[in-house]
């Protein structure tokens, strides 16, 4: 049953290819045990549904987060929902429908805002897929994912998933050795450690001849059910160093490829994200690998400034219907209903704004104010076309599969799509911003060893790059000071007078995470930032590798 269901996908997962991603290992073990994937979506999309069918072969558990309830206007394109579902939480209904449709898949829904979940919740996932509809939400989740990123002191990336849960399939046969020339890689099985030496001795001469010495690129382990360990040896023809395999952990470390000493991310802490968005006939899809590709903040300059009407135009010289509507919405509402928040989903409020806009338009002789235009302007409604949603979400689903299985090269790294005039797709390879506040190594904070936690928090408020107020600080998962909830605040209040150096286990430098509020152009947003704290005048630079252990 499972065989025929994934017959088509198998062709990609079980066969070698030339245009594949790095570290692609075809084989039935290309299912990653305990891999979890988290999907955020404010819009349910076509391909997402279909993709679950075959991605379920690759992923064990899925989780879906959405804070919205189903509305009637969603039904034209969000096909998992029916009329009877209106009013129910989107996440729950979507999960239920997909599980009914696809046997064997497990989806856990969460009906809440993404900010409501703790950081640990996100840390469990292997891949995060986003279908969000605001810059703030994307920014938040980007900082969460990049917050997990740890930069090595040796500046080496390490792959967590593969190191800790390495599936390996190793075949033993000289025939494979002869295939090296064509494939560039060989998978070698060996039942026991000593035998590996024999095998490599056999293979090595064959490999040496045409292409030069092979390298032990990566070794992964997998415990067989019977307790019999198998080891696999992947020999990558591209490299030149060959090291014998002795004990798994230490050898794995010895086998780690070395890079130059720039600040490079630790691969094990990398949490890839796939993000997509649509508007009318246009859309985008991108792959964010924190620390490697630019994160959301690195490319935030891509967003055009938001259209705002100057207040004097609204107040004195309106010219268009939109001016009249915004006048009623922004100025008149507060005058008449001071204190009461305007709720765009409340039909009475909307009707009031519409009638006020009409009055103003009549006063100035401006035509064109209608109820639907009022809704459009106030709610900032952007048209959504089901086919564009399908295209972008299909692209995202495809990228997720490719990231998870490496069965093909991935998108690098930003796809724009425009279907207004003909059809245009373009892939741009954006470059990471080295000084990015979010995915970079973290803002450097050089402080004296005697500085207290309270003083440190004050520093954050005035720091030009941060301007973070009401900061809460965590270090390696431990809450140093939390502004909320009140219970935690009381518990951690005593830490404010203690030296930060002591609270951070007396390490000379380490990473802390801070959450707080930043205000950008009068708008307060919650943000999460990573800081590199270096204590001045403390001797000894210890290896971040061995300190504490991630």
């Amino acid at each position, binding site marked *: 049953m499972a065989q025929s269901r994934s017959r088509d996908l198998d062709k990609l997962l079980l066969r070698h290819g030339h*245009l594949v991603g790095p570290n692609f290992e075809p084989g039935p073990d290309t299912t990653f045990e305990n891999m979890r994937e988290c999907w955020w979506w404010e819009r349910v999309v076509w*391909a997402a549904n279909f993709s679950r069918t075959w991605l379920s072969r690759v992923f064990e558990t899925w989780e879906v987060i959405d804070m919205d309830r189903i509305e009637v206007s969603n039904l034209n394109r969000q096909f998992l929902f029916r009329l009877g579902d209106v009013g129910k939480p989107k996440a729950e209904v979507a999960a239920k429908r997909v599980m009914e449709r696809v046997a064997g898949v497990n989806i856990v829904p969460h009906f809440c805002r993404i900010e409501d979940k703790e950081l640990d919740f996100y840390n469990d996932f292997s891949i995060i897929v986003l279908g969000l509809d605001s810059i703030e939400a994307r920014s938040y989740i980007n900082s969460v994912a990049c917050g997990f990123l740890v930069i090595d002191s040796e500046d080496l990336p390490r792959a967590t998933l593969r190191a800790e849960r390495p599936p390996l399939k190793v075949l033993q046969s000289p025939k494979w050795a002869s295939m090296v020339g064509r494939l560039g890689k060989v998978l070698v099985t060996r039942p026991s450690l000593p035998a590996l030496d024999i095998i490599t001795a056999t293979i090595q001469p064959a490999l040496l001849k045409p292409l030069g010495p092979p390298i032990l690129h990566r070794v992964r382990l997998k415990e067989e059910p019977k307790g019999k360990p198998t080891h696999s040896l992947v020999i990558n023809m591209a490299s030149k160093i060959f090291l014998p395999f002795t004990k798994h952990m230490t050898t794995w470390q010895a086998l780690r490829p070395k890079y130059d000493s720039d600040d490079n991310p630790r691969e094990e802490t990398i949490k890839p994200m796939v993000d997509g968005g649509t508007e009318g006939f246009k859309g985008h899809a991108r792959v964010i690998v924190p620390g490697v590709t630019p994160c959301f903040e690195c490319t935030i300059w891509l967003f055009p400034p938001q259209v705002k009407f100057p207040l004097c135009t609204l107040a004195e010289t309106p010219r268009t219907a939109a001016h009249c509507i915004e006048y009623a919405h922004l100025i008149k509402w507060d005058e008449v209903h001071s204190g009461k928040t305007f709720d765009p989903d409340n039909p009475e409020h909307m009707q009031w704004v519409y009638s006020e806009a009409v009055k103003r338009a009549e006063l100035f002789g401006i035509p064109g104010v209608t109820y639907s235009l009022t809704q459009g302007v106030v709610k900032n409604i952007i048209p959504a076309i089901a086919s564009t949603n399908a295209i972008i979400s299909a692209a995202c689903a495809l990228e997720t599969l490719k990231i998870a299985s490496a069965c093909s090269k991935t998108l690098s790294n930003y*796809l724009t799509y425009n279907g207004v005039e003909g059809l245009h797709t373009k892939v741009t390879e954006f470059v990471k911003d080295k000084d990015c506040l979010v995915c970079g190594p973290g803002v450097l904070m050089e402080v004296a060893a005697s500085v207290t936690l309270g003083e440190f928090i004050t520093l954050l408020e005035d720091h030009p790059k941060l301007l973070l107020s009401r900061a809460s600080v965590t270090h390696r998962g431990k809450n140093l000071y939390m502004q909320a909830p009140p219970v935690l605040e009381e518990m951690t209040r005593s830490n404010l007078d203690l030296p930060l150096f002591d609270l951070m286990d007396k390490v000379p430098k380490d990473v802390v995470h801070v959450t707080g509020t930043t205000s950008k152009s009068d708008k307060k947003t919650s943000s999460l930032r990573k800081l590199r704290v270096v204590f001045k005048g403390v001797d000894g630079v210890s290896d971040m590798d061995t300190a504490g252990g991630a």
Partner: protein
Amino acid sequence: MVKLDKICREANIMLIFARSYGLTGFVRISVKEHAVIESKPDHFLDDLRLNNPWPELRSFAEAIDLNVPDPVVHKHTPYVVILVKMADEWAKNHGGSLPSTREEKKEFKELIRARMRALDEDNYKEAMEASFKVFAPCGISSNLQRIINDSCADVDSNSADFWVMVAALKEFIEGTGEAPLEGSIPDMTSSTELYVTLQKIYQAKAEADFLVIQRHVRNILNRIGRDSDCISKTMIKSFCKNARKLTICRYRLLEDEFNSPVQPELQKYLTDEDYSSIAVGFYILLRAVDRFAANYNSFPGQFDGEMDEDISRLKTTAVGLLGDSGCNGSTLTEDLINEMCRYGAAELHAVAAFIGGIASQEVIKLITKQFVPMSGTFIFNGVDHKSQLLSL
């Protein structure tokens, strides 16, 4: 595919091909002719006629004094008025012509800047930014020129309504040198009163142009022996509003494309390093796998055991296809051929959804006759998403 295409073309049915194959696929529309009135392009220059104001606009501008002492009034004069007056002044001083060289354009901008009295006069800033509209050439775009010169514009009793209106448009343009005025103006810093008056002037001119076109349409319909009321007023109005943005899409028969592709284009694609060589590679291979299936009764790579033979067979088929298309000597990369065999005619959900989304979007455009449908063959590249439109 070719057979279906012929049948649909004869029956005048719109046809769209869509196929997903492994990590690749294609979409191709095949319609004899598709005329789009409401093409709704993203960015299109507004029709302000600053370079050629008609009498009513000119007299409105003349009645306004730019040197008015009141600062509030000064900064609420719409930039349209500013530019019309300044363009007139320039023409008077330069023998009736408008700024054409770079220096002249710069000088014109400086003249506008000189009139600014304060730094916060947004209307003058807008005037400087919009000054290029004065320098724009009069008359119609080459696109529109091509349409009115098209052989279908010589209408007879069988012509479609669209072409009857194009014929009317042709007569209008021959008479006035410009397309009918669109009628809407963009928002600009201005007093409400002036802005609304300006709006009305533009709307009145657009209405006048529409009436002329309507008259032409009626005459032509009479001439070709059709009822002069059969094209509705709303349709003609929409046509006038969108006259500058009309588009015609014509598609070659698949048979023609396969037998005699546009050689220079094909060569260009085959030799392009970045996007196109993979796209055209997939294009050739997608046809090659069909030929393969016809010869060997299965798709390459469909069965696990015969990968090696399939790879070499597919290569031969592809080379043969290239030869038939007139590109002897060109080859496709080994990687691509291997990749194609690897797919083994598999259909992945995500790729199918992507192709389906594109096809459905094109269907929407064709049925609603709004927005411009794509031309050529869209080749989807799921490997690195560098998809491409090939016009062959």
